[in-house]
Every structure is written in structure tokens, then in C-alpha cells.
């Protein structure tokens, strides 16, 4: 079932609970769905001591799954990302619908070959003989004092790879709907959970629903400038839009949701009305989604632009540890306001 981009329910869940519910409902619906990863249950193999589900996942997104589905469908793995990501891809290409969890996107280096050279390319190289219904859950986001190897928002490198899809949900509603869509999809999908959103609550329908991959949504209408946010940056954009309103600047906010396919059409339609664009991206700027969206808008909507397509992003540095540096690293509403104001008023 595909559904609209906004919920019509009053039940509230946290972002992490929405992820958990999507996994549980898909595993109930389809017995070929399996999930594997590090600590997704925790304390593995200690059933004889009465220990099951010791952690429920490092961020408790997988809690309860092993009790319901058992240790043959909920597989704690050794710390061997190349092996288990590749194994999940192999299982997906031979009849399973496999989900693997890479604890942080920064760890992708150790298993990238399996994503780049197998998951992404098998269908093409094999002339369409195989489907790879593989979902890789992973985590992004700075702001937690986790330093350079646990904080990045590297989705653009996946957008760059033909054969992969990617989604970056921004709230509990999109977290559930996009995860269900990702698991049901017959192509490999990378699902980016933002660590800063896990505690956020929002309305989430109880029944399973899929939000279509490749569609952005407009979360605030406006006429003077388009702010495009990705994942948590969507809420930095809305905060900036609220701050700009009293100045008479009416900002539209687009929540990208899918990092591949990218919904250029929705962004370009918006820019044709607002004539200005700022892409707000927690990823680093060079060869980024922000750069790509600006280039696309410049190519296809140049005549509609009243100002240069612009970016507010992290700097081209690793994520720093110390609090003032990390705070400065992250794009915030003040930076977005300043950039947007400059584009609208020329000041």
C-alpha cells in the first residue's frame, strides 16, 4: 500500500519506535525477511543463561525482534561487516529479503566493496538475471561528541553509485513508511537513520504503509525562497523559515527524503515559483547532494533564478570532537537565515 506524504492519525511514536515497528510488521508479513548485524539483539548465544536481546540494538531500533522471530531470522553477527553485508547481499540474490545493519555509516569503508561491486552492479552485470532485495540500515549525524569516525552524514557517496537507492527519513512517519518501502523494494536500498532524530515523536499510523521511494515532500509552503533539507536538516530549514517570516521572507521548505532517486522535479517546480534556492546539507560540500541539486537547478531552471543556487553545509573537514568545534561544524538555522536573507534582499 502506498500512502500520502502526511499522516492522518493521532497515535504518536518515537522515530526509533517507528523503525522498530516497520521491521516487525515486514517480518510478520513476509517470512523471507531476515535481519543481521552487530548487537542487533546483543549478548548472542547466551540463551542458556537466560540472556536474550541484551541490547535490542545499539540504539534499540531492533529491540524485541529476536523474541518474536527467533535467532534464525534475527542474526547477531561477528564484527565482520564485509562478511555479513556481503552475505546479506548473497542471501538477497538467492531468495531472501535481507536487511543488514551497518552500525555507523563511517564504517562503510570496510564493506564498501560488497555494496559497490556486488549489490549495486550484479543486476546490471548479469543482464537483469537477478534481483537484490537488500536493505542496509545505517546511521548518520553529528552533534553527540562522537568525533570523526562515528558522526558523518555520508549519503552522497551512495547517491553517486548507479544501482543503489537511498532514503533519509526525517520524522517517525517517514521513518516507518520509507523503511517498509525499502524492504519491499526489489533493488538495494541504503536507509539512513539520523541519530539526532531517534527521540523525536510524531503521528504514525498503526497499519503498515509504504512511502514511495524517490519522492520529496513540501513541509512548508512559501513564495520567496526554497529551502531544501535532508534528514534532520529539514527541521533546521523550518526553524530558519520561522525566523525569516517576521522579516517578510516567506520560505518554502522541501524535505528531500530520498537521496536516490532524487526528486528534482519537485525542487525545480518549487524554484520556478520562488526563484531562489538554498540546499541545507549536513554532509560535506564537495561533490555532495547539495552541489548536485544546485547544479541541476542551474541547468534546468536558470531563467527562473533571481539569485545563485546556494548551499549551507558542513565544512570540508572531518567531524571535530570538541563541543564548540562540533557546534560550528553543523549547519544551523542562523546560517540558513543569513544565507537566505542575503539571496532575497541582496544584503
Amino acid at each position: 500500500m502506498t500512502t500520502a506524504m502526511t499522516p492522518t492519525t493521532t497515535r504518536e511514536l518515537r522515530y526509533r519506535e517507528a523503525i522498530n515497528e516497520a521491521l516487525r510488521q515486514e517480518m510478520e508479513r513476509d517470512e523471507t525477511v531476515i535481519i543481521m548485524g552487530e548487537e542487533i539483539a546483543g549478548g548472542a548465544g547466551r540463551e542458556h543463561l537466560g540472556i536474550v536481546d541484551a541490547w535490542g540494538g545499539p540504539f534499540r531500533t531492533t529491540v524485541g525482534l529476536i523474541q518474536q522471530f527467533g535467532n534464525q531470522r534475527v542474526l547477531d553477527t561477528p564484527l565482520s561487516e564485509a562478511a555479513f553485508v556481503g552475505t546479506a547481499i548473497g542471501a538477497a540474490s538467492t531468495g531472501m529479503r535481507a536487511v543488514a545493519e551497518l552500525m555507523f555509516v563511517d564504517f562503510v569503508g570496510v564493506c564498501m566493496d560488497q555494496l559497490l561491486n556486488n549489490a549495486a552492479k550484479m543486476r546490471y552485470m548479469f543482464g537483469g538475471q537477478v534481483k537484490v532485495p537488500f536493505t542496509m540500515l545505517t546511521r548518520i549525524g553529528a552533534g553527540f561528541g562522537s568525533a570523526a569516525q562515528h558522526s558523518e552524514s555520508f549519503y552522497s557517496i551512495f547517491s553517486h553509485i548507479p544501482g543503489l537507492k537511498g532514503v533519509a527519513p526525517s520524522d517517525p512517519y517517514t521513518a516507518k513508511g520509507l523503511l517498509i518501502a525499502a524492504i519491499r523494494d526489489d533493488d538495494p536500498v541504503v536507509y539512513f537513520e539520523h541519530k539526532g532524530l531517534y527521540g523525536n515523536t510524531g503521528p504514525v499510523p498503526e497499519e503498515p504503509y509504504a512511502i514511495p521511494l524517490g519522492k520529496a515532500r513540501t513541509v512548508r509552503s512559501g513564495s520567496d525562497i526554497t529551502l531544501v533539507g535532508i534528514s534532520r536538516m529539514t527541521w533546521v530549514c523550518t526553524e530558519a523559515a520561522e525566523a525569516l517570516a517576521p522579516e517578510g521572507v516567506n520560505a518554502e521548505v522541501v524535505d528531500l527524503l530520498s537521496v536516490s532517486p532524487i526528486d528534482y522535479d519537485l525542487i525545480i517546480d518549487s524554484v520556478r515559483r520562488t526563484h531562489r534556492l538554498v540546499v541545507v546539507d549536513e554532509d560535506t560540500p564537495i561533490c555532495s547532494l547539495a552541489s548536485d541539486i544546485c547544479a541541476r537547478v542551474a541547468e534546468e531552471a536558470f531563467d527562473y533564478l533571481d539569485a545563485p543556487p546556494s548551499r549551507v553545509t558542513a565544512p570540508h573537514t572531518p567531524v571535530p570532537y570538541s563541543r564548540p568545534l562540533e557546534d560550528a561544524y553543523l549547519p544551523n538555522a542562523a546560517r540558513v537565515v543569513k544565507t537566505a536573507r542575503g539571496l532575497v534582499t541582496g544584503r
Partner: protein
Amino acid sequence: MELDRNMLLYLYRTMTTIRHFEERGIPETGQRGMSGSVHSSAGQEAVPTGICAHLTNEDYIGSTHRGHGHCIAKGVDPKLMMAELFGRVTGPNKGKGGSMHIADMSKGMLGTNGVVAASVPLAVGAALTSKLRRLGRVAVAFFGDGGANQGVLHECMNLASVWKLPVIFCCENNGYAESTPVEYALSTARVADRAAGYDMPGVHVDGMDVFDVFEAAGQAVQRARAGEGPSLLECRTYRYYGHTVFDNPLSYRTQEEQDYWRGRDPLLLFRERVAPGGLVSIDELDFMDLEAQELMEDAIRFADESPLPALEEIYEDVYVDYPLDLMRRGINLEV
């Protein structure tokens, strides 16, 4: 070990088909300007033959860049393979993969693979599918002595042992990773020694002797089917040519060494072992050589007569479902 006549014929036919494919198909591919990605497995025929003799179409294999022999032994049609090498739409991969990516899912062939040891986790994943769905299938992960030193292999041997998966890790040790001799790059005397670290049987066999391979593979496959877990099987073999068609192997190995291994040719060894037994006559073996020769001429003709892909096929099969507009937006291939 007693093998019936049908099995003997099957083993020889498979080996001579592989040999003829390599000897005839690779130069022909080169003449069509596409030899850059082709690696000959001539000399190594006994390994895939002896192993795949224990497998059915339901079982899986993951292969390497030197994988024509694996394909043929697993039942992929050499005519279609030749078309794939020539980049024709009649290839199993519609000409999109070539020598290093030949796959035939209908035969459980999970692809030759251009990245060393990269197909190992695919085979492990297929074994996981078999175990979880109780399919009774096994998977064989082929890799070379070069692949023996890849991290992903070691992670996979550990994982497969922990999960008791029905998989056979098969090292085709042909003595060289590109030009690097195995005795330089391997920390242990044998690849098979490493099995001890993963609590699985590690067996070293003469990879030029199809009967030796057949027997060891039978035990490993039986163990896997019985749910007792993975095995590591190292087959010492030799490739007659360079890493690709472009390098001169005499730049890193001696003529004497090549002559020694050519003297232990797997087809020759088969003839020496089988002829005195009388189950199969030399004439029959000669006839199978002729059949393989004719098969290659047919295959070359079939491939040459097959169409090349149309330009629009560049966009096909990237995904099951993706907006075509996003793949071609702003791109004009016609200019």
C-alpha cells in the same frame, strides 16, 4: 575410488570443453578487440570439474575472474558464454558483463567476479538462504591463492563456521597472484592450514588430478549437506598462460617450471589413469576432444551471428525500478 563409466565420460568431457573454450575462445575474443578482461584457466580444468560433479543446478557457486571453467562445469552453455565474451545480446548477461561477470542464475552460477574474493560472501549468503529455508543446497566459494589473502574471505570463513553454513571454500592455488608467487605472499605453507583457525577441515589436494579433487570435494559437499558446516579445500594447480593475455609469464617464472606442470596436464593425467582400466577407451576420449573442438566452432559462429546490443540497452537492468529520466537526464548518447 570407483567411478562409473558415465561419471568418467562426464569428467573428461567437462575438462576438454573447458580447455577448448580457453584455447579457442580467448584468441577469438582478442581478435574482436575485447581481450582486456579475459583470463584463461587452461591447466586448471580438474578443479571446477571435480568439484561441480557433486553439485546440481540447485546448488550455488561463486566464481573468480578466471571463471570460464567454473561456468562450464556448473552447466552454463559454452555457446552463450562465447556470445557473452563477444559482447552479444545472446550472452547469459546480454553482453553487459563479459568474461569477468558471466552468471547464470538458472544454473546456480552466481557470477564470475572481477574483484578478488568478492564472490565469497555471495556464496556464503546463498548457503545461508539454503539453511534458513531448509533447501538442502550447498554453495561453493571459489577463490585463488591471491584471494586467500583477502580479508573478506577470512571474515566469511569465520562467519560460516560460527553459523555452520553449507559452504565449501575452494582455493584454486595456481601458484601466482598475477605475477606474485604464492610462496612470497602466503604466511603459511599451505592455504589449507588456515582452516584450523576457523575450526573447519582443511584439505590440500593435487588440483591437476581430477580424481583427487573429486574425492576430497565429495567429502566436503557431504559434510555441508549433512549440516555439519563448512570446509576449506585447497587444490594445487597451475595456469598455463599469464595472468591475462597481455603478460609474459616467463618474466616471473621459468620454462622448466612450466614444462613440469604441462607434463602433469589434467587431461593427460586422466588418460593415463583411466585407459588401463578399460571402462573408457582412448578413442572415446579422442572423440570427445573432437566434439569439444566442433562445439567451439559452433559457438564462435553463433556468437558472431548474434546481434550487438542496441544503444538504449545501456539503461536496462541498472535497477528493477528507477525513473529512466533520472539516468538519462541531461545526457545525450547520440552525439
